């Protein structure tokens, strides 16, 4: 993707946050540095900044979510925005209204930012193409395409533990095929110059020509985990058994589940990550998930600061665009 991507203005500044692909090292470090400076807000007595005072943020979730929606909500509130939560599960009642109609209706409520999750790849980009110019769109997950704020909180967490990306070996394990988290994280790690990015999965859970994303492919967990600094486990959806992609959860756990024994193959100080929600005993053993190497809950906490950073950066550029004082 070129610099003319819809999420950037002519000067290359972020107007929306739709995908990591096509962003620069500078974009990413700006977000990480801003998030770092915002991280302290939660430790204050009054956990608020006035950055988005008077702005309205709409959480538009066409797919169920707890963690992502809640941390977006907290992030917006800590920036003093008004928040509207719309959970539009894909029920038949909703099907009558097109996405564009939904968009125009919410636009009519004079909002400033949409945080959107949708089951179709490209849905956030579609929204961004159709919203009025003063509105920023943040992608909270579109189909199997992208989940860029998750990727940013993941690299933020990695950077806090292991700041030297070129020296890092990182393994992403599990259902890469359906994972928007994996795609966005791979892009982010490549942009930050990570030394070696590995994906570990059976053939049925890897998309075609995945190596072209800039990763090394492993089919066996023990080989793939050897000497890595970071292990990212992905959630395995139960539907995958019905789609004839896997025989059973048991076999998946036996082959690809992260146990203490297998984690021992990684570097002694390796950290374990998971975007959540975790399936204990399917992709990860409880002793690992709750163990000393796990940074899974830290990821959740970091999600708030990272989302605050992305919100203030994108809306800041919009304010400049519309001549307002940010």
């Amino acid at each position: 993707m070129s610099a003319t991507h819809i999420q950037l203005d002519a000067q290359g500044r972020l107007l929306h946050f739709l995908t990591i692909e096509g962003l620069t090292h500078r974009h990413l470090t700006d977000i990480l540095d801003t998030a770092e400076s915002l991280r302290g807000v939660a430790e204050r007595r009054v956990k608020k900044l006035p950055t988005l005072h008077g702005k309205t943020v709409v959480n538009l979730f066409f797919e169920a979510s707890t963690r992502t929606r809640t941390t977006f909500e907290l992030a917006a509130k800590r920036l003093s925005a008004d928040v509207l939560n719309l959970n539009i599960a894909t029920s038949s009642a909703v099907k009558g209204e097109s996405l564009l109609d939904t968009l125009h209706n919410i636009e009519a409520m004079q909002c400033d930012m949409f945080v959107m999750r949708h089951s179709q790849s490209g849905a956030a980009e579609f929204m961004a193409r159709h919203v009025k110019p003063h509105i920023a769109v943040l992608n909270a997950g579109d189909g199997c395409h992208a989940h860029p704020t998750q990727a940013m909180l993941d690299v933020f967490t990695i950077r806090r533990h292991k700041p030297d990306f070129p020296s890092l070996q990182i393994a992403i394990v599990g259902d890469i095929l359906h994972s928007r988290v994996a795609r966005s994280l791979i892009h982010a790690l490549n942009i930050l110059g990570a030394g070696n990015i590995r994906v570990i999965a059976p053939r049925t859970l890897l998309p075609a020509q995945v190596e072209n994303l800039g990763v090394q492919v492993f089919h066996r967990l023990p080989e793939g985990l050897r000497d890595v600094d970071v292990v990212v486990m992905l959630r395995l959806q139960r539907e995958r058994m019905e789609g004839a992609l896997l025989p059973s959860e048991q076999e998946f756990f036996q082959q690809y589940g992260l146990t203490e024994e297998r984690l021992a193959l990684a570097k002694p100080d390796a950290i374990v990550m998971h975007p959540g929600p975790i399936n204990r005993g399917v992709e990860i053993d409880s002793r690992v998930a709750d163990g000393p190497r796990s940074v899974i809950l830290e990821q959740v906490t970091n999600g708030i600061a990272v989302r605050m950073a992305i919100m203030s950066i994108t809306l800041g550029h919009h304010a400049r665009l519309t001549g307002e004082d940010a």
Partner: protein
Amino acid sequence: MRMVIQGGRVIDPAHQTDSIADLFIADGQVAGLGQPPGGFIPEQVIDAHKHIVCPGLIDLCARLREPGQEHKATIASETRAAAAGGITTLVCPPDTDPVIDEPAVVEWIRRRAKFAGQARVLTLGALTHRLRGEHLTEMAALQEVGCAGVSDGGHPIASSRVLRRALEYATTFGLTVFLTPLDPELGNGLAHEGQVATRMGLPGIPVAAETGMIARDLELIRDLGVRVHFGRLSSSRAVELIARAQAEGLPVTADVAVHHLHLTEMDLTHFDSRCHVRPPLRGLRDQAVLRAGLASGVLTALCSDHQPHEPDAKQAPFGDTEPGISGLDTLLGLSLRLVRDGVLSLPALIERLTWGPARILGLDCGHLGVGARADICVFNPETDWRVEPGILNSQGQNTPFLDWELQGRVTYTLLEGHIVYEGEG
């Protein structure tokens, strides 16, 4: 009505004609080429200097959306667009609503087309009732009312048993069978399985979804000797399979949609729903082999695969949009671009748009022999035009070729000797 088309470069591939000559028309038929028939006094003279004069184009796959989806387009609107595009014969696949699976629907379409009077509309009957792949249609009755063949209508038959019986039954009556090879299960995706779909997180359609079906179908054809035409190939391996089958002497032909010769999976970047088509746009190598297949004659026809849509059908996230491109208006211009790109010569290209599809249909049309129906296209190959919003004559404005500079504009389209379109050229 007697008419002479004067001074044009007449290209009639069926008779290996390519020369500057006058073409004489009388009573809706070609009356002579070069020398006027005895005592011929024209009532009308068309000046065709610096123009190409060729048989009217024959488009093997055009959805007119009527009956059933008149909000997308109508027979009247689309035959008008065809006439403006130099197309005189359209073949309508059976996936209308109701499906073309009984004579009444065929008659109805014929009446509507005749009333519109802009282009000849041929129909393909369904192979199975409601295209469900279960019960055979009354193919003999469909043939009697004029169906040009029978087809799966874009709904490939999953059951090999039903397909074999349908092929056997069709061959009883000498019907040509038109198949669109794409495995319904394996082909249940949104984009070519490859690096672009992987990046975009779109479910992939592997090449094997196409070639697996063709391989199965070819084995059935080998046993039965039925004439089969494969429509809209998308992959290099499919072209290779067809070439091999033809070399073995199997009675098979194939075509390609012109957009597959100009676009690839790369055009899907940014989730451009106008490039959402089935079969999907594939890689550069596929495009190159399809182009070579058209040049060598493995692919005997080039079609528009016209699928007009209302704007809403394309205004949604990629996976929620309907597949298809509105192609009648750009068929000639995009085809002529292949000549400019050095893919094939102008006479060879005209052959793939006229005599090639006519032979597949087994009809006496697509040529300019004396006594042939005077379905004629006159165009200026030098005229540049730009595909702009609202410029399409089709009711469907869904084209990914917006802002493309095309060469070649139709000045006259004649249907049985009558001028159905006159443009500025």
